[in-house]
């Protein structure tokens, strides 16, 4: 009984790990293809779409690591908000034309960047091979940190232990919003103050005078209406149209 049960348990576990590894491999392919697409694609719009691919692959990886809330946040905030912001700026600036890759202003910038990235990667792999850290299997017994759903545990930790960091994050977001608005707003009032003020004040002066005196405004439209109708309709029939308006 017990050996058979243990055998079936190990078989189920093996199938589960195989599925996990398959999901991980597929996500690795998606994430890395998207990442390489971001850095090598010439069109910025294509780069943004590759970034969406990368973020979706990472959301699946988060689900595989039992971080369900984080996967949802990844899709909503990153793929839904940040990439849309990128696309907005790309379209707004009209820089969605293809970047001229051949014209390198800095000589050898691209090979040097590739070399630096490869050196960093080689260093990390070398360090990981040399020591025995970071080779443990993740736990398969259940989700991290006791009973309850992922969102529940995350909320409990955020609103107790990391409450100060959470509040500071909200302050940071407010500062970022204010900073973005201040940076991106057009200072037309300060740059061209005197012409704008003059343009604003000139139309306002007749309008401001009109409500003050009650009698002239009804008189002024009556005088202005025939004046406006004359140039509009004087060519086909000027006098017949002017006569009814005068009769009224």
């Amino acid at each position, binding site marked *: 009984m017990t050996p058979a049960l243990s055998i079936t348990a190990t078989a189920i576990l093996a199938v589960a*790990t195989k599925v996990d*590894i398959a999901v*991980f491999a597929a996500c*690795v392919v998606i*994430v*890395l293809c998207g*990442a390489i697409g*971001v*850095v090598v694609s010439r069109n910025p719009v294509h*780069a943004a779409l590759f*970034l969406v691919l*990368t*973020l979706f692959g*990472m959301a699946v990886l*988060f689900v595989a*690591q039992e*971080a369900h*809330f*984080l996967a949802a946040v*990844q899709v909503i*905030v*990153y793929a839904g908000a*940040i990439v849309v*912001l*990128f696309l907005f*700026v790309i379209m707004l*600036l009209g*820089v969605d034309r293809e*970047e001229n890759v051949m014209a390198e*202003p*800095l000589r050898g*910038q691209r090979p040097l*960047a*590739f070399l*630096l*990235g*490869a050196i960093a*990667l080689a260093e*990390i*792999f070398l360090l990981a091979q040399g020591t025995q850290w*970071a*080779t443990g*299997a*993740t*736990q*398969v017994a259940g989700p991290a*940190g006791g009973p309850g759903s*992922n969102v529940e545990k*995350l909320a409990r*930790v*955020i609103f107790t232990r*990391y409450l100060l960091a959470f509040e500071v*994050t909200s302050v*940071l977001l407010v500062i*970022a*919003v204010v*900073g*973005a608005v201040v*940076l*991106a707003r057009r200072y037309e009032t300060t740059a061209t103050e005197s012409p704008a003020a003059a343009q604003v004040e000139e139309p306002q002066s007749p309008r401001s005078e009109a409500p003050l005196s009650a009698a002239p405004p009804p008189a002024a439209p009556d005088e202005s209406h025939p004046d406006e109708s004359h140039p509009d309709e004087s060519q086909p029939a000027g006098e017949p149209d002017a006569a009814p308006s005068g009769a009224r």
Partner: protein
Amino acid sequence: MYLNQFLFLAAFLFCVGVYGVLARKNAVLVLMSIELILNAVNINLVAFGLFRESVAGQVFALFVIAVAAAEVGVGLAIVILIYRNRHSIDLTEVDMMKG
């Protein structure tokens, strides 16, 4: 599922992002590469959180996402400002503070 799988993936993603930051001259694409780097950090945080059976890694990844959102907002505002002043977002042309 081993921890080092995720660490290697994050390392590769980080290096791809570093290459993008160093090699691209479009400011928007540089910001996208920074997003790749931050995502690599997120993978590491979540993987270590799962490894230590703690939910703190996910909390920090959440904070990283919030900081990334703020960074993208301010960064893209700066990009718009640069484009308005120079009619270009080529980062190699932004050399006003060059000595």
